[in-house]
């Protein structure tokens, strides 16, 4: 089972190390981790995707809460959450297949952000399954490089996850 945790932390140096260190020390698996500042500049938000059953999730949450710099941990249920990830794909391409790739990008509402004689870079945003899907379709052309940001998420509606 995968869970998305929204973790508000003090925006101080060393906090990422504390969180990442706790995960590796206790043997929890992180699928992705993103971090960035929030509307309050003294607070950062980490969005962490962890793998594990409910017992693991409970331990992870409690261990996160034990860190002094962690202000709040929320388990985001997928029904009530919007989640996005951004990916960049550098695909081998030349005149012969450029338009085919552009069509695929179009279907996924992805954008071409760089075109070179033998490659192009495609930017796509969406939930994980969408990014997995376009990756599948681009693979036959030859993905030279790819980067994914990991998931970011917010709760739907006016109510947020704040301190």
């Amino acid at each position, binding site marked *: 089972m995968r869970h998305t945790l929204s973790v508000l932390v003090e925006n101080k140096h060393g906090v990422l*190390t504390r969180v990442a260190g706790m995960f590796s020390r206790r043997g929890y698996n992180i699928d992705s981790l993103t971090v960035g500042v929030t509307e309050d500049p003294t607070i950062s938000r980490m969005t962490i995707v962890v793998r594990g059953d409910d017992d693991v999730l409970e*331990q992870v949450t409690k261990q996160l809460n034990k860190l002094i710099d*962690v*202000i709040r941990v929320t388990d985001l249920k997928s029904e009530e959450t919007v989640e996005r990830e951004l990916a960049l794909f550098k695909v081998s391409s030349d005149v012969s297949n450029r338009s085919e790739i552009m069509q695929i990008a179009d279907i996924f509402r992805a954008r071409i952000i760089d075109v070179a004689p033998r490659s192009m870079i495609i930017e796509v945003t969406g939930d994980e399954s969408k990014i997995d899907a376009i990756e599948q379709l681009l693979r036959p052309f030859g993905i030279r490089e790819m980067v994914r940001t990991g998931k970011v998420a917010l709760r739907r509606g006016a109510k947020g996850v704040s301190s």
Partner: protein
Amino acid sequence: MTESTGKMTGARALIECLYREGVDTIFGYPGGVLLPIYDALYDSDIRHVLVRHEQAAAHAAEGYARATGKTGVCIATSGPGATNLVTGIANAYMDSIPMVAFTGQVPSSLIGNDAFQEANITGITMPITKHNYLVQDAKELPRIIKEAFHIASTGRPGPVLVDLPKDITTEEIEFYYPDKVELRGYNPTYRGNLQQIKKAAAEIKNSENPVIYAGGGVISSDAAGELKELAEKIQAPVTTTLTGMGGFPGNHSLFIGMPGMHGSKYANYAIQESDLIIAVGVRFDDRVTGKLKSFAANAKIIHIDIDPAEISKNVKVDIPIVGDAKGILTNLLKYAEKSQSEEWLKKIEYWKKQYPLHYIEPATGDGIKPQYIIEQIKEACEDAIIVTEVGQHQMWAAQYFRYKEPRTFISSGGLGTMGYGFPASIGAKLGKPDKVVFDISGDGSFQMNSQELATVVQENVPVIIAIFNNGYLGMVRQWQELFFDRRYSSTCIQDSVDFVKLAEAYGALGLRATKRDEVRPAIEEAIKSGRPTVIDFVVECEENVSPMVPAGAAINEILDLERKE
């Protein structure tokens, strides 16, 4: 914020903060980057105890904390001084002891350059501190120190490290000491949920085979009185862990000794046949539970603990009550009634008679059984503080003394650190100068920090080191005997040192007992002397700690190992 007390250097500010925190004794060792701080200490009222190895400073601070309940403080220089503290910090972390460790650091401008004596001590200690700080702005020093003491001593206590770059200690700041801390990410729960407490009371009332399993949390929460009241009210037997020793009177009829690997048979049998475990301030350590799957398999489990992360970490808990043990027990006492334990207590009495802790005196000769020494120390000085090293002697000290009061037994539990006891005894003695303090030691463990003889002589700290000299790293030898066909690989340390001469070389008193009837006189002489004393007790060399649950076995699969002659 309180009024400013004027301009001062960071080093002076540190001393000022220590005063405000009520610190009167610190343990440490100087070095280059600490010069400004040591200069400020020179004419302060704080007693600085100069150890001979920084590891000892950390252990001594912990011993001080355990004996007094206050936060222990130690200080070491950058690089090797700081890394020498690591074992002591880890030890305090495992046993949840309040401690603040200060380390010097190279000047801010050099951090990250592999400067002379630079070590990333905040990085190194991240997994073994409750929290740590690298001070980056001298103006923040008072706030950080205030927070450090607050974090170390509240909630589940633990060590906090504050790393002090040299320039921070020389910079002039306007000194303000904050009245309170504001940590939005740190709000320990103290009050237990009343609904849960009532549920626990209901379970207790219906229970036929209740067992109270109490640990270090009872000591740190100062809840021994409430625990005793509860046990008597509900009529449940009480087992205390190594770190919980003294949390329940060892001479009480409801006391059933220690659980787990070297616990009493009757404590282990009681746990295994229990229908309700009332766990207070414990963490279901593997040395206690043995094979997890069969631990108290038929029992419901009530778990009272200040740390929510301990709930259901190892053993699934039925009724968790998160909060401070003292307050929760006080509340539980209001609702709890007598359990249905009449038959159960009879059974426990039967087990106690049938399977007492025991050892076999040598039939001939006058050799010294180690357990006998513990009994003699107890008879000579029942209200002593007993500190221990790690090994067989530690287990005998836990089994045979029967501690009556909290904070009278001090031992390295979670980390099992050889070399802990002697420096910890220094801290205990300085914290409780009116108490007789023994370090129950092994010939192996003592040699891990024997340099502290210089400290106790120079500072005149009259602790008594009782070396159980069996010529072996006995606990390891015991495992080799049982599980490795008596192949005593690297565990024989016979005749490696003359401990009496070693004591004398430092100016301490050295005594030796080689026969049974020399044991008591040596103890008496050491107590009477009022001097730092080493007693070399030459004991039976292949005595085993009994009983014993083999690693990985269920705790009722417990073996008798007493050695006949």
